[in-house]
């Protein structure tokens, strides 16, 4: 595990909507470890890949099963 080494500007450059986040969320984002940030960037990239072809629906949603 490595400690945080990024700024809000770094996060914004990766496409995180920093301006729309609460102060608490921003504080948590600044505390992300390098591994956490890398995983979140991967997740964000997957969101960007699919584009706006289908809009998420609040009722027809969820697909994970445990």
């Amino acid at each position, binding site marked *: 595990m490595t400690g945080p080494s990024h700024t809000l500007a770094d996060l914004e450059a990766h496409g995180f909507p920093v301006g729309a986040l609460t102060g608490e969320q921003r504080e948590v984002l600044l505390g*992300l470890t390098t591994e956490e940030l890398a995983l979140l960037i991967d997740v964000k990239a997957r969101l960007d890949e699919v584009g706006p072809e289908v809009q998420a629906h609040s009722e027809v949603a969820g697909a*994970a*099963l445990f």
Partner: protein
Amino acid sequence: MDRTSGGSIAAVRIKLALTKPALQAAAARLWQLPGLAQRYPAYLCAMHGVIRASVPLMELAARRCADRAADDPVAGPLRQYLLRHIEQERGHDDWLLADLATLGCDLPRRVAAQPSPTVARLAGAQYYWIEHYHPVALMGYIAVLEGNAPTPELGDWIVRTAGVPEGAVRTAREHAELDTRHAEAAFHLLEALPLTAAQTNAVTISGLHTAETLIRLFADVVRAT
């Protein structure tokens, strides 16, 4: 050794919540793109590979908790939670197989088929972390899977849109009912556990990895059908 306050678990929630838009987008494609009648059996097959590992993962984690109980204050309460949750989850893979049987799926062939690399990446990481790091990592997996369960309306949507019989959506309906409560129970446990910072980080990494791989799995199903 520093032990986590409830505030650190609030940070875990915030970090995992950042994956929600991507998970919701991936699920939206799964349910809303044309061709759900073909895609739904493929989704069930993929998820059978995941759900069949749920009880075995918890059983392994409970055994590793028992091994650690003497000198790890997390192990005892975590083991008690896992033993309860094993009984709550037992047999759910059979619901899914029954859904597939209703769709006319060749069950012996399905059960014998090798799960995909993405399924192995999703569930397999948990086996590794439980065995070689700490069983609490499994809580990130549980929190993400149970926190992104089917909505109550999804069963009706599948029946209507895919044209499948009611008997083919039991798994979606049951999980919509159960998993919202289960996801909250997972976080309540985390708030109560005396986690170290490293253990809290393990839960977060496990949850983020689960989210990323789950999105990949849903995309695999869409791509293949």
